[in-house]
């Protein structure tokens, strides 16, 4: 008998928690998002739960209402690479994955950052490759607005090619450190990237030996066709919003098909949908927590979420009016995530405020409300039905909801034999069961 497929778990670190009002919860330490303790507690909890990944997302613009800074909901995300470097020092096994935009950086600098993160964490680094869809970010980098999506993704692909080529620049054995001959390096084994079709200018090789993992693990988080194509070619893990099992199964099947076109097999990729666990020792207790959190969503915050999600003028609507579902469906920029929301709104005849709170609660991710045993059932079902390879856990607030998950859901998953009892290796690649990429050389 084959051993059961094993779940992979990521902790999606998000200051304040993933529920938009999580920071207001009685037990949330609201003023400590810049303290070492806050992140140490979360990372060490995740490591105690044998998580594969400590993951940090990115925001390159503050939360505003028009031109004005939105003080009700403006908890900043910490610079991901810096935070991951700090977390690597307070943990010994868990992978550290930082988000970094290909639109607002240069490849040589990114290659060095992640190579460094991989060296200082002894092979635990990963890069979540994003092209940054937030139009507001452009104005912090001298741009007049968002680049066209296809332009962003074309740059993104070339960017990843450039970064991986830089990582590959140092062949095995390049570092000699031979004191008898006085040769520290073998320059013939260090080459600058040879990418004739690449628009980035890469004149010098990286000034660092190849990262311990060969390449830090490449992760992708966009769900659009462009994002999927980038993921099929490069991603070794995907963070995705999949609230529905059937849709998740077809997404996973589609990704495997797309990967085959690039000569890759399903084992080269871990698909990890977001999962926000609202847990209680009974169903009633869990629902009470959900209600408690929902009540903390300030109407202004809910409306802000709604107007950020839909390019639609809600000013003539009162909070208790029915959501104009038809008009919203006709909007040109409707995305897959919004469609899920709109069908829920139509079904439940949501008011504007209710719809806004729905968005504020889940950010279109899968929210589970119930007991740890029931959540383990859901996770097992998704794994066995082929809906995922694991989950990116999004606690509603820190550290309590993470602690409950680690103390009550993790042992249940372990008991069922679908999750590791302890780490077997010490690198992120080993946790995810990924191969070490063979360096591509110019003369191959």
């Amino acid at each position, binding site marked *: 008998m084959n051993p059961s497929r094993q779940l992979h778990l990521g902790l999606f670190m998000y200051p304040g928690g993933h529920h938009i009002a999580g920071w207001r919860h009685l037990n949330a330490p609201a003023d400590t998002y810049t303290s070492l303790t806050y992140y140490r507690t979360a990372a060490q909890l995740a490591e105690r739960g044998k998580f594969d990944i400590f993951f940090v997302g990115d925001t390159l613009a*503050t939360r505003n209402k028009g031109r004005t800074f*939105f003080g009700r909901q403006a908890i900043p995300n910490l610079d991901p690479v810096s935070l991951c*470097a700090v977390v690597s020092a307070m943990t010994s096994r868990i992978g550290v994955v930082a988000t970094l935009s290909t639109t607002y950086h240069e490849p040589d600098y990114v290659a060095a950052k992640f190579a*460094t993160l991989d060296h200082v964490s002894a092979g635990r680094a990963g890069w979540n490759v994003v092209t940054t869809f937030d139009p507001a970010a452009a104005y912090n980098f001298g741009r007049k607005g968002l680049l066209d999506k296809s332009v962003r993704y074309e740059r993104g692909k070339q960017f990843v090619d450039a970064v991986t080529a830089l990582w590959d620049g140092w062949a095995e054995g390049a570092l000699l450190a031979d004191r008898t001959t006085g040769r520290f390096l073998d320059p013939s084994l260090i080459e600058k990237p040879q990418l004739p079709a690449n628009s980035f200018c890469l004149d010098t090789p990286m000034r660092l030996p190849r990262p311990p993992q060969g390449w830090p693990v490449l992760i992708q988080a966009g769900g659009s066709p462009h994002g999927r194509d980038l993921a099929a070619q490069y991603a070794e893990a995907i963070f995705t919003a999949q609230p529905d099992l059937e849709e998740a199964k077809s997404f996973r099947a589609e990704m495997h098909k797309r990967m085959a076109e690039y000569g890759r097999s399903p084992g080269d990729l871990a698909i990890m949908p977001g999962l926000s666990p609202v847990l209680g020792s009974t169903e009633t207790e869990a629902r009470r927590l959900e209600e408690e959190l929902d009540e903390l969503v300030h109407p202004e915050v809910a409306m802000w979420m709604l107007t950020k999600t839909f390019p639609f003028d809600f000013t003539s609507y009162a909070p208790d009016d029915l959501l104009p579902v038809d008009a919203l469906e006709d909007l040109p920029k409707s995305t897959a995530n919004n469609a899920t929301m709109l069908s829920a709104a139509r079904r439940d005849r949501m008011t504007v405020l209710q719809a806004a709170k729905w968005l504020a609660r889940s950010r279109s991710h899968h929210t589970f409300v119930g007991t740890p045993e029931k959540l383990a059932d859901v996770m097992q079902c998704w794994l066995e039905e082929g809906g995922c390879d694991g989950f990116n856990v999004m606690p509603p607030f820190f550290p309590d909801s993470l602690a409950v998950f680690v103390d009550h859901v993790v042992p249940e998953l372990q008991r069922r034999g679908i999750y590791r009892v302890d780490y077997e290796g010490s690198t992120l690649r080993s946790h995810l069961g990924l191969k070490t990429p063979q360096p591509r050389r110019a003369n191959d």
Partner: protein
Amino acid sequence: MYLTVALGCHGFHPAAWQLSSATNPFDIDLSRDLLAQAERAGFEAALFGLPIGGSRLLASGLVDACELDPLPLVGALAPRTQSIGLGATVPLSRTQPFHTARAFSVLDHLSGGRTAWVLLPPYEDEGAVIEDAAYPALSRSEWYERAAEYISVVIKLWDSWEDGCVLADKEAGIFADSRRVHPIDHVGPYFSVQGPLTAIRPLQGRPVVVQFDQSDAGLKLAAQTADVFIGMCSSPEEAIALREKLHALLDGASRPRSAVKFLLSVWAVIEPTETHARHRADTLDSLISSDLMRAIKEDRERLAGRHLPNVLSGHRWGVRFVGTASRLCNLMIEWSGAGLCDGFNIVPSILPDTLLPLFDELARRRRPVPGEPVLLRQRLGLIRPMSVFAATTSATA
């Protein structure tokens, strides 16, 4: 007397790796141990990312011209250390002020206010010589203009969240006071940045800005923006002249002279006896083969006109000192006592070997070490600057 130390690979002599007792310079535990000793010896800060040599040296294969990116390195070292300041360089030519401001903000918070931003002379970092459509070749004066603008944008971004603007008022549902978080709306010849930063103001208000470019343009920039200036002088006379020049520029910029701490850089070979030290220095120089000498010359020619510290025997790294730790300490006391400087930056020829006897000697002499966590700014006797936006808010409130 303030003390900083430059750390990088096997040390600041091109043959250091051949004599160093460290086999893997990327070993983070080694850096941690070294920093623990530096803390006990009372060092105010360690500086990472000072250039060891250009790409020609790397290409020669004869020098350990490799380096970890100093920012994530500082991140990895922050929780492994207690009291020492951690400085990092950033290549201005290849980065955006927004990212730089944000990274330092986070690291400053998570390190308990111990970070320093070390500025390389703007035309000296490797990126500046890469010809690239996105980075058209700038003239030397344009690189300085760009650097000045870069720094001013970073400072405005740090200041964009005023002190005390985070209310974290759970009851009222207000995280931060919107009136005290400001777009910076910067539009300049090189950068256009709207802001505010996606990060709370650093614990130090602004991380300590360290500069060591003593060209005329570099000194002018330092007079406007530096908190610490490291002078590379080979004699007390040179140091006096350089400090006077800096003071005159500070007067002109209407900044108090005490606003910039003036440190002298000392490139050092330190051994238990004078004889051992001289022998060690001779051995280091004897390991410079003719091939290595050629590579050093090529590197220097390629970076012609650039004031890159001379990797050979360290004389561009400042005072060249070969001797015992005790004599170095006496010399430092004598020079700072004579008012030549506010302290010293030690540039070790060989890591960790050069530093070990110095750490022992300083620990013996009981340099004060802060018992409580303290901002690097405070340790260096620098004020914590107000946000430039603080005045505008109180005026309109």
